[in-house]
């Protein structure tokens, strides 16, 4: 029997690494990859609990998370490319200057 709490703890650690990446790095591409890692950690927790409680709903949620992440990546990368074409620098602080 797999002890599910270790898997969920792994998901928490993965989420933590992703959150630190979003907070610390300034390259928008790496921040975005860290955010992807946070999505993945949430999906892992859902699947672990689905296995524990013998309920397919958790896997359905993980499937929806994968679909949502795909849509998010499309929009996010398009935003990064659009900002880069105007400013020619990969720095997240460039976007904060949009406020004028």
């Amino acid at each position, binding site marked *: *029997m797999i002890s599910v*709490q270790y898997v969920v703890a792994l998901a928490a650690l993965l989420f*933590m690494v992703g959150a630190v990446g979003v907070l610390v790095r300034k390259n928008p*591409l790496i921040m975005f990859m860290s955010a992807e890692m946070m999505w993945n950690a949430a999906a892992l927790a859902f699947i672990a609990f689905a296995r524990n409680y013998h309920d397919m709903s958790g896997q359905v949620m993980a499937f929806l998370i994968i679909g949502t992440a795909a849509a998010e990546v499309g929009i996010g*990368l398009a935003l990064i490319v659009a900002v880069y074409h105007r400013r020619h620098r990969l720095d997240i602080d460039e976007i904060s200057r949009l406020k004028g």
Partner: protein
Amino acid sequence: MVGIFIIGILMLVGAVSVVVVRQPVHSALALIGVTIGLAMIYLILQAEFLAVAQVIVYAGAIMVLFLFVVTLLTAGKEEMEAEDTLSGQRWAGIITGLVVGLGLAVVIATHSPVKLSTALSGSFGGLHDLGHQLWGPYFAMLAGVALMLLTGVIGVLVLNRPDQVNYKSRLDLPSGVSLVDAEQEGKK
């Protein structure tokens, strides 16, 4: 059980290297490793279809898109990260993230959830069960995700529409001296 620990350690190493490496390309490659490790853990947790979907969607589609954008934007550049505009922002971020994440992990690892004694049904995690759930009680959410993907496609098209380039100005090139004229100049 040992397998999960080994895969978990490898995944955490990959995850940390996503955050600490300098080049975005290396970070994308490390994220592919994390994704493959996740797919293996999904297999151990009897989510076969999701393991396959994870590899196809993440390693196959999302990371390829990332690599395209990384090579498009950062090819041949060696840029240092910019200075912080807020002083101490970096350390505040690290400490906040570590406290929240480690606290969460410790709480989870010390509280074991209820274990069901019934045996797992043989078809658990297969495509059949998942499809029944998705097209039954969760159909509204499936339709929502489909709409979201469609909105994403339209959003990408709107965000990156081509600029209105003035093609006429490219035709106003100065008329060059023809080769015949140049030869005649030489003979004189």
